[in-house]
């Protein structure tokens, strides 16, 4: 039996933090992620290149099942609508649609994308402040649920439905004080000052508008479940007011999204995985508020949820490779990896979890992780206790499923492959790596 030669490790100077072990006990070995759904990180990079986005269908499905169970065991009629802007890769959207989710879109582009995926127009919720005449025409013709954002959109809809001689299914977006700061009053009609009630009355009297529901979206990354209870109670009040005045039951209340994922917001003291509410907690707050409202139980409306982030964040990983290790002028350790803020928009909000793919050293040093861009803003982590890695080592950034593959930039370099590992454990490319052709196809030179 031959002894294996131990790997060389650069010497590190660490401040000795003397004293008794904290309540968390003794330091533990840093976490590492060697494989995703059974496929080794190295194998994935070898086959699909670095950097590489990897999604786990298994995680999507279990997360979705958890969310459904949380709501469906508390409320009689629940419908999730997949928030396209969170991640509109066809393969990802299809997983949600196959599990029964509707589509929630905020632009004509997203609307078209949903239609192209085979989503029935009547199962699309059309949100957002920007809806052109063409977009609205498309939505009316497909019998989508149009969530009206402002009076000008309402007037446009009245005009359009008359012109097309078709009835549009509409809801209004309501903004309200739920005790959350900042209050998102830039979207929709305000509850407290009576604007929402005013809009409802106008719609109820409009010939060709069929008011089917009420929508609200109180903010993003909301960590107080009580805010949802307040929102649900206020929508329930409007729902009953409509019934009293018009003897009419709306069909749904849409509580929007904004559920926090397990990521840790910058500036927070405790990790997100410890502090963010679970689906159960959100569901408890919303369902209780609706069930204990004055709505008779036979007339409880369907509950729509547009949560995106909390459903997909955990399912996405970004695999990346170490390009260089560096000492800054202060002596602080830093390193450069091949994925930067061009791919990780969420790194502006979160302290993303970055891990090695091998059980390396348990000696860690505070490190700054830079992306590959020739731009000063390209910082993936300001400060992270990280073990020493070598050039070419492969790292895994977790919880990057939401917003990154939609808000990523084609900036300085191409965008990489995106892979989905299906429930049966096979990896498939679901978005091909860009190349010069991708870019040039859209451009044209002025001929002289």
């Amino acid at each position: 039996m031959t002894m294996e030669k131990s790997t060389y490790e650069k010497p590190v100077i660490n401040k000795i933090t003397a004293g008794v072990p904290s309540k968390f006990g003794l330091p533990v070995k840093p976490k590492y992620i060697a494989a995703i759904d059974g496929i080794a990180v190295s194998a994935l990079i070898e086959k699909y290149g670095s950097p590489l986005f990897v999604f786990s269908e298994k995680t999507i499905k279990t997360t979705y099942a958890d969310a459904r169970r949380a709501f469906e065991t508390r409320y009689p009629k629940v419908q999730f609508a997949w928030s396209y802007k969170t991640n509109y890769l066809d393969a990802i959207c299809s997983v949600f649609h196959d599990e029964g989710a509707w589509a929630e879109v905020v632009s004509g582009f997203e609307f078209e994308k949903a239609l192209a995926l085979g989503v029935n127009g009547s199962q699309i919720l059309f949100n957002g402040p920007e809806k052109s005449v063409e977009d609205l025409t498309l939505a009316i013709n497909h019998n989508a649920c149009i969530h009206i954002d402002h009076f000008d959109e309402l007037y446009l809809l009245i005009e359009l439905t008359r012109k097309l001689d078709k009835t549009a299914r509409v809801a209004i977006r309501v903004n309200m004080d739920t005790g959350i700061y900042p209050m998102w009053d830039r979207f929709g009609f305000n509850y407290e000052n009576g604007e929402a009630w005013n809009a409802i009355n106008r719609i109820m009297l409009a010939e060709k508008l069929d008011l089917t529901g009420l929508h609200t979206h109180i903010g993003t990354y909301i960590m107080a479940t009580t805010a949802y209870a307040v929102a649900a109670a206020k929508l329930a009040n409007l729902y009953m007011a409509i019934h009293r005045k018009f003897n009419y039951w709306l069909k749904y209340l849409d509580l929007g999204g904004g559920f926090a994922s397990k990521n840790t917001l910058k500036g927070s003291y405790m990790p997100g995985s410890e502090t963010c509410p679970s689906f159960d907690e959100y569901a408890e707050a919303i369902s209780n508020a609706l069930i204990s409202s004055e709505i008779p139980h036979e007339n409880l409306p369907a509950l729509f949820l547009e949560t995106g982030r909390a459903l997909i964040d955990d399912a996405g990983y970004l695999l990346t490779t170490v390009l260089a290790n560096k000492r800054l002028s202060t002596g602080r350790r830093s390193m450069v990896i091949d994925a930067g803020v061009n791919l990780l928009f969420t790194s502006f909000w979160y302290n993303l979890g970055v891990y090695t793919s091998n059980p390396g050293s348990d000696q860690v040093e505070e490190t700054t992780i830079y992306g590959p861009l020739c731009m000063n803003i390209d910082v993936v982590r300001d400060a992270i206790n990280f073990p020493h890695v070598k050039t070419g080592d492969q790292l895994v950034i977790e919880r990057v499923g939401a917003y990154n593959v939609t808000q990523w930039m084609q900036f300085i370099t191409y965008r990489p492959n995106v892979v989905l590992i299906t429930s049966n454990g096979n990896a498939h490319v679901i978005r091909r790596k860009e190349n010069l052709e991708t870019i040039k196809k859209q451009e044209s030179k002025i001929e002289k």
Partner: protein
Amino acid sequence: MHMTDALRGRDIMHSILNSYSQVFFSTSKTLAVFLMGISFFDYGAGIGGLVAVLVANLLAWQMGYNSWFLRSGLYGFNALLVGLGVGLFYQPSLQVYVLIIVSALTCFFLTIVFQGVLGKYGLPFLSVPFLLTIWIVALSAGSLSALNLSERGIFVYNELYSIGGTFFVDLYDFLEKGISSTFIRIYFRSLAAIFFQTHLLAGIIIALGLLIYSRITFVLSMLGYAVAYLFYWLAGIEFDSLGYTFIGFNYILTAIALGGYYLVPGRVSFGWIILLLPAVVLITTSTQQLFQMFRISPYSLPFNAIVLMFLYALKLREQRSRYLIETPVQLGEPEKNLYLYSGNMNRFPAAYPVSAALPFFGEWTVSQGHNGDFTHKGAWRQAWDFVINDSGGQQFKNEGDFADDYYCFGKAVLAPADGTVAEVINSITDNAIGDVNTKDNWGNTVILKHNDFLYSKLSHLKYHSVEVKPGDLVKKGQLIARCGNSGRSPYPHLHFQFQTNPYVGSVTTDYPFGHYLLHEKGGYSLQSFDFPKKGQVLVNPSKNEVLKKALHFIPGRQILVSVKVESEKDKWKKLEGDYKWVTETDVYNTTFLKCLQTGALAYLYNQGDMHFFTNFQGKKPSPLFWLYFTLFKVPLGFQANSRINDILPVHLLYGGVLKIFQDFVAPLYLFLKAEYQLVMKQTGDVLSSDKVQFETVVSRKAAGRTIDVTKSLVYIFPDGTFEINLETDKAKIRMICKNESES
């Protein structure tokens, strides 16, 4: 005008004919003609019977009694028997017919009285009115000196010759000599005795009529008679007496009534006939002794006594009856009753008056079912425990050390059906995990009263979570409390049981849940009035407004049907065209669709959560019949890929020799089967704004082998329109059923 006259003429004819066949609990016109015919073998009796029927029916009509009873002959058959008896007893004369009219009148009012009195107990009046009337007449016989006793029956050949010439005489001779077996002779004579006839021939004709009307009835008449005969022999009773007292018909009628008419025929009902018939024999022999003192016959007393006692005793059963099921809706023919109910008793509301929903939202798992391993034992065996499992099959998150870790803890508990709160316990604290409170065994509990004999109990509720108080009226699906961990509950779960009284600690009763979806691999299957088993994952079906609207057949709703047929065969091709169906309701509140072109009727029932077609009468194949079997059972709720299985009644899908053969053995074994399956494909959506699509498959099977399969693809649109695309091996049929607008 002409129309109403014709209708009245038909009603009169029905009321008269049915008065004859009703003696055998039938409304068969063929049987009626046979019976009427033999009643005139003795013209005095024949005329007497007819006069009595006319008197009774005229009274019922003039005095405004129920026209349906009148038409079905229920007011006339007792009077008929009285008329036959009196007519036979005396020489025809004016006085005799006055006596017949007077006794028919007496008998009619006795009919009304006994219908009222016995009806309150849900019992038929049978031939009790006849019995009392005939005794009144018989006991007065000695005083009626103006009437002459009949001498007929003594000169048999003369009478036969006067009816049917030499042919009848020869036939009579042939039968008298040809049939030498006492057993068979007495059987025919006993049958004939029901119509006060002494001739063998009359018995043979009645037997033939019974055979044509119903094979099961015929078999039962033989069975009842044979068992009695055997008992006579075993007990050493002199059976020659059967020959001249004609009392043997009691055995035949008892067997027909209990074996196949008032109870759904089956092995068990046949078995009970064997057990009961000796008792009828004993009552017969003993009452004969008693009545001899007055020089009258007990007539049908033994039959009436046994049938009424047995039916009444059955009604007092407390537990759900699995066997000896009282015919919920009388179809008037044992075969039909059997075929309709053999598939699935549970289809019928009469079987289970309360349709209970699962008392929770979402998918829960049965952790302990009836006769469970832990606590559902003995008198408390018919109960369920429910919990929530995650996708990994765990009941809790984290380590499960705290009640809050359990998914079911704190979840809403709902009223399973409308009712009144009978009992509330709300102040027992929840246990720590693993601990049990055996002092307050049931923990926090709500007991709801659904009807006089059905209560539901929900236990181990969360401390101070009950939101109702005793006396409150609750609606199905209303939140009443939260799932907890109080009482004898080591970990959070919901205990649910049905019981027959309002006390905590009461024993359980065997009662099922109404309609629920059972989670299966790749979908759901809908279970109706069934008992969830351990490990099953269940969810309530949610309502779909499109289905609810389309399947809501309000009286007056008119449907225009256009039928297109692609087929080589003329049989199918000629059904192409336009039809109109109207929805109507009869006196029993039964709703049915009536085809104005064919006159066919499709009876239906809508329980609020389920649509059933319960029966079909009329021309087959026809568009309404296609509708009947494609929409045989459709839930008003939806769930993608949910599945329903049911059994269609044999008599509606089979005919000919095969069916006649099946009739004979039906109570023992059904080798013909027509299976129905519905699969929800596109299920509409949670807002019910889209069309619903489902597929139904009807497979006809003989002894397990598939004969043929009819598939249909059905679309139901939000405006209530049905599109049915039917496919058999012989034809492709497309039906569009549109509501007629109210213009």
